[in-house]
């Protein structure tokens, strides 16, 4: 009903059939083009962050060997690396990239509900990236405040980039949030209001559930970051004291008085914790679909998976201060937040069990996406378990601000989602281009990346236990630093450099396969979801022919006994089934 009425289908196709390169690739309102724009920009800026991490590793592994890395530069690397990875790479790639590509296709829509707003969303995101990168060209360079940007230190003399860098960072974040909001409103509205006939919420692929919940979290959590960015800009530029207490700097009493640095931390983490799930939930969803498809078996406990996503989303708003156990906040808060944090582990654990149970006695195809998916499950378990340590106040106090924390968050929100992203790109590249990615390069890329990341992060847990502090430029002659630390740091650096360089394989594969890859056909993985049933590959603007597909079943009909293939597409009615008959 409403679908046909609200999509001016022919009109949409006619109005913007592309004429020039610019109209086709820059001012395109096609969600698939916008997705690829988001993807390329995010990967590009992500490579910058990767190079920055390499430089940090050089310094940590071989201190005093590199003249161009002084403490200032190191802090700038750390800050830009962390912020780019979390926001401009992962958030943008998972939601702007995969969200844009998959939502209309998997829901059976022609496009996002407001394609023009969607296009502007990308342009604004692009501007935010430019502002961020401009940090390197302003006097004083980018801010070195750490990705958490805590005041008072973020805007006091002594922190690198205090003149301009902190402002470009804050403005860039505010602009990013505007871009995200425009895109996010589109994804949510499309999922809620523009699914095709038969695609009830409980038949949606888990990818869409993850993207949906993550976007909702984004729309509700980014406001806190936006507000804190605005207030910090005011503190910095016109001298208000929202976050700045009475303070003296370099022996001089400053004009600030009465502000609350703790307020910033609370606002930041009210955003920051949901942000972890903004990155994790799409990865959870996507990996569920990858596992099910490449193991030719229905996902175990679909409903439980959906409710777990919802529960995690809700709970993620009441755990934020587990990042603040050592901040000097109200002493009773530790109890409250440790409790909620341990509760959120329950739905998370359910998801892990369900992935494992899906794999149990399945017909596992060791394709590249499957390799990455299994790697994800293993890595996520490691990162999740260390999270239980850090969630408890007493255990966290000695571990806080050590390399144990660095190891934990890289495992759980760095490596894990990245593994899923790689898997997802290997999985959906054929739909985006009509070509398969090269399998042998893929395998090589996988093994180097997977083993390499363990070589990097596993030893970091140990570094944390022996007390190596986080965010230190050099450990010098500290008495607590063991001999073994020096050796390990060298090993980690070598591993990091190998992993970093190995990503060239991946980029090469993307480019090479685009021109020379094997033709994939419309559905190389024999998958059930709607995007594989499009009339053309890659799908054209408008996605479907004059009629939208109708959905008759859930997304996980693999290896159904008695069926002629080992998969049944969502759009296929079974013999004698009435239209829209409920799922058995």
């Amino acid at each position: 009903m409403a679908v046909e009425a609200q999509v001016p289908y022919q009109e949409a196709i006619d109005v913007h059939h592309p004429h020039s390169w610019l109209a086709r690739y820059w001012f395109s309102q096609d969600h698939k083009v916008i997705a690829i724009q988001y993807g390329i920009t995010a990967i590009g800026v992500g490579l910058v962050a990767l190079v920055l991490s390499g430089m940090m590793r050089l310094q940590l592994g071989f201190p005093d060997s590199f003249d161009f890395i002084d403490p200032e530069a190191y802090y700038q690397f750390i800050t830009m690396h962390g912020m780019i990875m979390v926001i401009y790479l992962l958030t943008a790639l998972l939601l702007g990239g995969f969200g844009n590509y998959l939502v209309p296709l998997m829901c059976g829509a022609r496009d996002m509900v407001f394609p023009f707003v969607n296009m502007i969303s990308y342009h604004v995101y692009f501007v935010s990236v430019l502002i961020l990168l401009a940090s390197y060209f302003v006097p004083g360079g980018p801010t070195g405040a750490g990705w958490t940007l805590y005041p008072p230190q973020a805007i006091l003399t002594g922190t690198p980039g205090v003149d301009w860098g902190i402002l470009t960072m804050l403005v860039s974040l505010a602009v990013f949030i505007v871009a995200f909001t425009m895109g996010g409103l589109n994804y949510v509205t499309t999922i809620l209001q523009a699914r095709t006939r038969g695609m009830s919420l409980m038949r949606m692929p888990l990818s869409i559930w993850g993207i949906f919940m993550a976007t909702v979290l984004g729309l509700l959590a980014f406001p806190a970051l936006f507000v804190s960015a605005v207030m910090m800009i005011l503190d910095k530029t016109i001298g208000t004291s929202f976050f700045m207490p009475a303070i003296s700097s370099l022996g001089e009493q400053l004009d600030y008085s009465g502000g609350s640095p703790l307020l910033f931390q609370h606002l930041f983490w009210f955003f920051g914790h949901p942000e972890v799930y903004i990155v994790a939930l799409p990865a959870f969803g996507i990996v569920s679909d990858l596992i099910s498809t490449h193991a030719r078996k229905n996902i175990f406990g679909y409903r439980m998976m959906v409710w777990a996503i919802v529960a995690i989303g809700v709970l993620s708003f009441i755990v934020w201060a587990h990042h603040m156990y050592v901040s000097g906040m109200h002493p009773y808060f530790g109890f409250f937040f440790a409790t909620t944090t341990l509760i959120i582990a329950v739905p998370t654990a359910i998801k892990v069990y369900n992935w494992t149970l899906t794999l149990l006695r399945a017909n596992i195809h060791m394709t590249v996406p499957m390799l990455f998916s299994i790697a994800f499950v293993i890595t996520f378990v490691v990162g999740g378990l260390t999270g239980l340590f850090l969630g408890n106040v007493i255990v966290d106090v000695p571990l806080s601000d050590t390399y144990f924390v660095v190891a934990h968050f890289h495992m759980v929100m760095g490596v894990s989602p990245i593994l899923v992203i790689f898997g997802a790109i290997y999985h959906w590249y054929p739909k985006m281009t009509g070509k398969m990615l090269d399998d042998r390069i893929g395998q090589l890329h996988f093994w180097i990346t997977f083993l390499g990341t363990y070589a990097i992060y596993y030893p970091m847990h140990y570094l944390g236990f022996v007390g190596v502090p986080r965010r230190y430029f050099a450990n010098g002659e500290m008495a607590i630093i063991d001999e073994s630390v020096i050796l390990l740091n060298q090993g980690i650096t070598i591993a990091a450099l190998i992993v970093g360089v190995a990503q060239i394989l991946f980029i090469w594969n993307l480019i090479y396969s685009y021109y020379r890859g094997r033709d994939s056909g419309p559905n190389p993985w024999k998958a059930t979801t709607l995007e594989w049933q499009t009339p053309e590959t890659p799908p054209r603007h408008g996605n479907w022919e004059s009629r939208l597909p109708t959905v008759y079943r859930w997304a996980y009909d693999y290896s159904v006994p008695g069926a002629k293939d080992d998969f049944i597409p969502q759009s296929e009615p079974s013999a004698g089934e009435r239209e829209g008959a409920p799922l058995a």
Partner: protein
Amino acid sequence: MAEATSTQRLQLVEDWAADVAVFRGVPWGKAMMWIFLLSDTFIFSCFLTSYMTVRMTSAEAWPNPSEVFALEAFGVPVPLLLIAIMTFILISSSGTMAMAVNMGYRRKRVGAALLMVVTALFGASFVGMQAFEWYKLIVEEGVRPWGNPMGAAQFGSCFFMITGFHGLHVSAGVVYLLIVAYRVWRGRYEEKGYDIVEITGLYWHFVDLVWVFIFAFFYLW
């Protein structure tokens, strides 16, 4: 009554379980506006929560808004006089907006356009009075974002930031209203229908709604 709630509960489950659209009969634009307003609620709430926090943690005196925002009328200072007028103006604008929506759905497009223009005028006068209030505060009372002669510096910071952000919303709303009013008047929505007036109205009422909270928490606390 009990029956009504149980059918409503059923309806809730049915709607969320339905295919195609969860919000039955709600146009895309309206659904999107509601979700945007939800997001904007979080923005304003974070501003107000920050204000609460700095005010409650302040060890310095908080200036008394009822005195600070008093206005001389007939030789006596009347507390919050201008604020009261501004409040009434904004409420009235919400009233005219609601009528405009009604007119739109009844396809009286000239009436709808006119009422929207009236709404916009109310909005513009609100912004004008706010400008006057800022002027008075800065020039006469010596309040600055970074300090003031009466007490805690955060008084000025919060005031300018929150009313400023609200004022920006009102100003944007005035422009939005005028654009839509013009299009309504030109008959652009004769075929598509007048949902757009309701959507614009949602935004406008939301701005009024935010003011309700600012009025209570900033001026009356």
